[in-house]
């Protein structure tokens, strides 16, 4: 049976994720069937394949799973950080650490998620976790 896109249902998960970011919220999907969090955005839970899910605000905590510094000439903007971060919710994202030298980011480091502006686009960025910021 064909799955109709109902009027008023809103955009698909990919666009919804970015719309949330633009509105200042970091939300990921949580399966209504098996309670698994999942990312990147999908129309179904990758674990139990359920198409029922909720958008849930992340707790904001994460840990660096792997990190690299992309080397770039200073006149082209200098080195920048690319990391994979494991969120407290158990999902992994690509991101960048904004408050440390790209070569000083280490695996296992605790970080906080925030919404940054990368060349005019809202994206999840990371700061190194500190006491007063922790929840």
């Amino acid at each position, binding site marked *: 049976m064909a799955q109709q896109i109902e009027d008023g249902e809103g955009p698909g998960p990919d666009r919804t994720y970015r719309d949330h970011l633009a509105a200042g919220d970091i939300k990921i999907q949580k399966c209504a069937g098996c309670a698994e969090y999942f990312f990147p955005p999908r129309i179904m839970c990758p674990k139990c394949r359920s198409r029922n899910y909720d958008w849930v605000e992340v707790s904001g905590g994460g840990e660096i799973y792997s*990190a690299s510094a*992309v080397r770039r000439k200073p006149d082209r903007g200098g080195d920048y950080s690319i990391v994979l971060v494991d969120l407290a919710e158990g999902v992994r994202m*690509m991101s960048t650490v904004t408050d440390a030298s790209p070569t000083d980011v280490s695996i296992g480091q605790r970080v906080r998620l925030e919404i940054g502006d990368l060349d005019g686009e809202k994206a999840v960025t990371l700061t190194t976790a500190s006491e007063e910021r922790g929840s």
Partner: protein
Amino acid sequence: MNHPLRGSSAIVGVGLAGIGEAPGWSHLELLAQASLDALDECGLTLDQVDGLFTSNLNNFFPTLTVGEYLGIRPKHVDGTNLGGASFLDYLISATGAIKAGLCEVALICYGSNQRTASGRLVTGSDAPVWEAPYKPRYPVIAYALAAARHMHQYGTTREDLAHVVTSARDWANKNPMAFKRGPLSVEDVLSSRMVCDPLTVADCCLVTDGAGAVVVVSAERARDLPKKPVYFLGGAAAQWHRQISSMPDLTVTAATESGKRASAMSGMKTTDIDLVQLYDAFTINTILFLEDLGFCPKGEGGRFVSDGNIAPGGTLPVNTNGGGLSCVHPGMYGIFTLIEATQQLRGEAGERQVADPHVALCHGNGGTLSSQISVHLGDETTL
């Protein structure tokens, strides 16, 4: 009990063209040169090619463009794009197609002029919206993240990675065709320009021109052709992710799965394998694949290469042509693993010839550690 595809097809002709630099030559011209050489080797002609297996980074419809250029009218084609792993996958699909009667003479071919045309590594990167804002420098960033994680988890060092480079160079120094030759030390690698930590430019594959072609027919037909047949013994594909951010564990690739299934088809254990040709796009690949294909325990790959095992004179000949690091890397390397393995199993590898090999393992990687294809090849004693 044999799998129906085991030993059912054979590589009967191989060709190479424009390895290194081919100024003024297009990717199709190079591809056609290699294809004609491969057909000449086995006494077949373009008119007899009825199966075409090709993809590249230039053409949206690779099998159509290449078929037109070669002037052939194939009745079976496969242009599946698995990056550099594609050509190993084509050997599996060509074997299936020949067995099923869909074609009789399969031509697997590739050509690229990326070095002289653009001077840059041409990739098929298409970062999704949740990665694009960070400007990940693909493909190297993916492998850098895997290397960093492997170092963190298993104590692998930059010196270990450097030994992959020097081992490849030592083999290249025995191969007159290799693009990069001459002495190279671990210190040279360590002091090279950093690209994406922990990978330097020396940890990255070459950017060259080059073309390769492989002709495959049924084992029965192969016996009537002039070259010693190199038989398909087993092959398997595996994939667990596309983007590096979706790879479950950056230290374990789907080669663990493809390797096991290829072995199940061929009946060959790792101890039966005389030489390995694997896609060394970056130094961490070699370490990951040696572990995942069962040549050393997980986490021991760095020490395995630092102990000299894969260099000339070591226990396991790996990338005997010099690999993508020192011989040739025109964007999609996979076909060169098949060509080098064929030349070795025929005993035609000159100064770099491995002593009396019977079984070769070729392993292709595509995407960002995404597509993993393992193929076992053997001479007539393995049937």
